């Protein structure tokens, strides 16, 4: 597995965007298009190389190579070696090759789209924008091909930095810097647990490698088999604890409950950035991490069940909030949270392929929807309120049809890509749930969320594109150029056809082998040992049940979810596909306020920051100034006061001094005399 052939160029995948970052930052001002060209070429180069990697993996090769040793030293690990090396390495296996292609593809399209979205609008600070996009892409690509947990953490953090910079791109407003800060802070809170997890895993097993014989997954497996005690816990519990710690980072980045609040606020950034964050970089990083170290989670049923439950709950929770939003980007933001909930659910029930499949499909259709929303915003002269839109269908057909394709995929309508992956997740959840009640609850929540997804998706489509124009801007939309249309069409096609990658229900019903992705992830082409679907399957402790035969279960699962999706869409059609739609707020009653306020989650977190942390900080400050510094100043005051008294001995009159001298001399004589025995 040495760096042979095409793989020796693997580092360049990430380095191209890094170069673009430097070029755009330093020379962007002087370049035509302010650095966009550099970014496009760099990400296109990454895409080409990623595709080459994909082809090479398809040809049965994989790549696992340490590039650079960061540091090394002694470790007192509980098991394994007494030395540890922290390295930067590249691991290209089916999963990372796939993800590299997704990320670089979305990055290219976002760069191209930016030409139409940012450059055409006369933005200032474009070099900064393209530089940050480049850095963002670099961080994410490096994160994707990281071969160890520490490297993953480091680029995970850099991804967080870039999201901070890009969300706060319009820093002259009040809201964007606030949203950026919130995004970084909330995800940092998750990363705190992640970092403990990294440190704990490194300290326990003496290795942080994802793959190979000396990976921490292997070490953990051995420890569980041997019944080793780790840090005072039995190995299984310790794996669960560390796994959940790492999961903290995932929950933060992938915006799962309760750390999801930053994502809707992150809409303050440019829409292109939202597309990148939601589809391929920041948010995807969390779920990708779970997939990357799936073998570790597979060792711990508890951790998996928690992942599944959090995922299912988030899917439903976010979907309900998406129902009442007026801002087109807000709806999409909540849909993202909800969809990543599905992926977590899929991974949590052991549906590794299903989760990754949905990650891929979601990347395409969510990038599409966001770029579509960006196009709508251009059309609407920077208006984002859906109630001011309407009737755009005929005026912007390309935008409409591509957006519709994305919406159908999001809602999970057959045969769009989203249906296949979401259905597979729900199917996996169902068969496991038949044996495990906790998972069944998660499945139920995921299932109910399908209805809401269908509803809010089509509410958005109808409000935006159908009916009569409800504002001047909607009557006379601003035209969009090729830079907008090309990415939309590309992604629209992908949203339609990407499902072909894994038609699991078709296979189960008819026996026709249409499950490319499954065999891809199972290493039928090429894979690193231990990082395959079947290897994970062996580790999993789940039992699967069925309702009747397997075929019947498949049909029931697909039928129910499709029915719910259609009914959700249908309700939306009934309510909003009219020339003059009304808000229908009263029908929800008190629930509307709760949903509008996002279940008061934001208020809760603001309260945590302002109502709890700040008073504590202020109290600490008061304590510091009064008690601690007061003691210090008190000591000085006491000595000053004392010396103030003593100094009065010095009257300044020479005669007094002379008298004191004499008195002292006599006193000394007397003392000496007394002790010397003269008297």
């Amino acid at each position, binding site marked *: 597995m040495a760096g042979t052939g095409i793989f020796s160029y693997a580092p360049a995948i990430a380095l191209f965007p890094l170069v673009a970052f430097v070029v755009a930052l330093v020379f962007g001002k002087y370049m035509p298009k302010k650095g966009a060209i550099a970014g496009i070429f760099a990400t296109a180069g990454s895409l080409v190389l990623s595709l080459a990697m994909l082809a090479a993996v398809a040809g049965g090769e994989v790549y696992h190579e340490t590039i650079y040793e960061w540091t090394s030293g002694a470790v007192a690990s509980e098991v394994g070696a007494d030395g540890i090396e922290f390295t930067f390495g590249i691991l290209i296996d089916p999963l990372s090759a796939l993800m590299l292609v997704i990320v670089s593809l979305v990055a290219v399209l976002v760069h191209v789209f930016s030409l139409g979205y940012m450059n055409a609008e006369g933005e200032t600070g474009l070099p900064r924008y393209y530089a940050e996009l480049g850095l963002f892409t670099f961080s994410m690509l490096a994160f994707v091909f990281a071969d160890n947990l520490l490297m993953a953490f480091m680029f995970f953090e850099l991804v967080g930095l870039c999201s901070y910079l890009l969300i706060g791109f319009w820093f002259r407003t009040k809201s964007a810097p606030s949203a950026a800060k919130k995004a970084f802070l909330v995800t940092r809170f998750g990363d705190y647990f992640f970092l403990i997890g990294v440190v704990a895993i490194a300290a326990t097993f003496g290795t942080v490698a994802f793959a190979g014989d000396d990976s921490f997954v292997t070490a953990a497996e051995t420890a569980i088999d041997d019944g080793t005690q780790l840090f005072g816990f039995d190995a299984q519990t310790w794996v669960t604890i560390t796994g959940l710690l790492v999961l903290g980072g995932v929950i933060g980045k992938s915006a799962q409950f309760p750390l999801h609040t930053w994502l809707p606020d992150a809409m303050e950034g440019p829409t292109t950035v939202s597309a990148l964050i939601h589809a391929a970089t920041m948010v995807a990083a969390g779920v990708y991490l779970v997939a990357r170290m799936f073998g570790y989670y597979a060792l711990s049923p508890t951790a998996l069940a928690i992942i599944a439950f959090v995922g299912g709950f988030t899917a439903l929770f976010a979907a309900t909030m998406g129902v009442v939003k007026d801002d087109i980007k807000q709806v999409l933001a909540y849909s993202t949270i909800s969809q990543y909930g599905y992926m977590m659910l899929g991974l949590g029930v052991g549906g590794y392929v299903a989760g990754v499949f949905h990650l891929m499909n979601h990347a395409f259709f969510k990038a599409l929807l966001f770029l579509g929303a960006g196009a709508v915003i251009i059309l609407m002269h920077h208006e984002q309120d859906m109630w001011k839109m309407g009737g755009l269908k005929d005026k912007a057909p390309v935008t409409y049809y591509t957006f519709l394709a994305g919406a159908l995929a999001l809602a999970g309508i057959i045969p769009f890509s989203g249906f296949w992956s979401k259905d597979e997740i729900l199917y996996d959840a169902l068969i496991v749930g038949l044996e495990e009640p906790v998972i069944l609850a998660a499945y139920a929540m995921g299932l109910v969320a399908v209805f809401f997804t269908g509803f809010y998706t089509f509410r958005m489509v109808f409000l935006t594109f159908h009916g009569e124009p409800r504002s001047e801007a909607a009557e006379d939309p601003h035209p969009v150029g090729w830079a907008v249309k090309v990415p939309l069409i590309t992604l629209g096609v992908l949203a339609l056809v990407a499902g072909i990658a894994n038609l699991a229900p078709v296979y189960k019903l008819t026996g026709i082998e249409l499950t490319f992705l499954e065999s891809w992830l199972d290493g039928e082409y090429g894979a690193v040992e231990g990082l395959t679907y079947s290897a994970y399957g062996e580790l999993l402790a789940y039992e699967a049940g069925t309702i009747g035969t397997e075929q019947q279960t498949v049909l029931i699962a697909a039928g129910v979810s499709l029915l719910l999706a259609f009914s959700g869409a249908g309700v939306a059609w009934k309510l909003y596909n009219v020339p003059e739609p009304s808000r229908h707020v009263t029908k929800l009653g008190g629930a509307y306020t709760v949903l509008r306020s996002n279940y008061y989650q934001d208020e809760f977190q603001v309260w945590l920051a302002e109502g709890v942390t700040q008073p504590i900080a202020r109290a600490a400050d008061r304590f510091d100034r009064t008690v601690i510094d007061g003691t210090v100043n008190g000591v000085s005051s006491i000595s000053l006061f004392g010396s103030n008294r003593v100094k009065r001995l010095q*009257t*300044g009159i*020479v*005669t007094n001094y002379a*008298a004191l001298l004499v008195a002292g001399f006599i006193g000394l004589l007397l003392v000496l005399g007394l002790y010397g025995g003269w008297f």
Partner: protein
Amino acid sequence: MTVALEYYVLLSIALFCIGLFGVLTRRNALMFLMSVELMLNAANINLIAFAFYHGNLTGQVFALFTMALAAAEVAVGLGIILVLYRNFRDVDVTVPTTMRW
């Protein structure tokens, strides 16, 4: 016939006490300076007397040193008194107390 050592010491004590009394009670700087001279000379008497008593010349040499020192001291002291007078229009040593703190 030699005078016994005790008498010298008594003379010296008397002279010293007169000087000390002057230092403690006089407010005039000149009197002050003279009192100091008296005390120095009391010490000189002691030195010479004991030198004679021990048959050792060191004490006498020291007395010479002391006299030279006293001369220097008077020079400096008079200088100070002049400055004192210039600043305070007086040679009262209890008046200038501004340097105390």
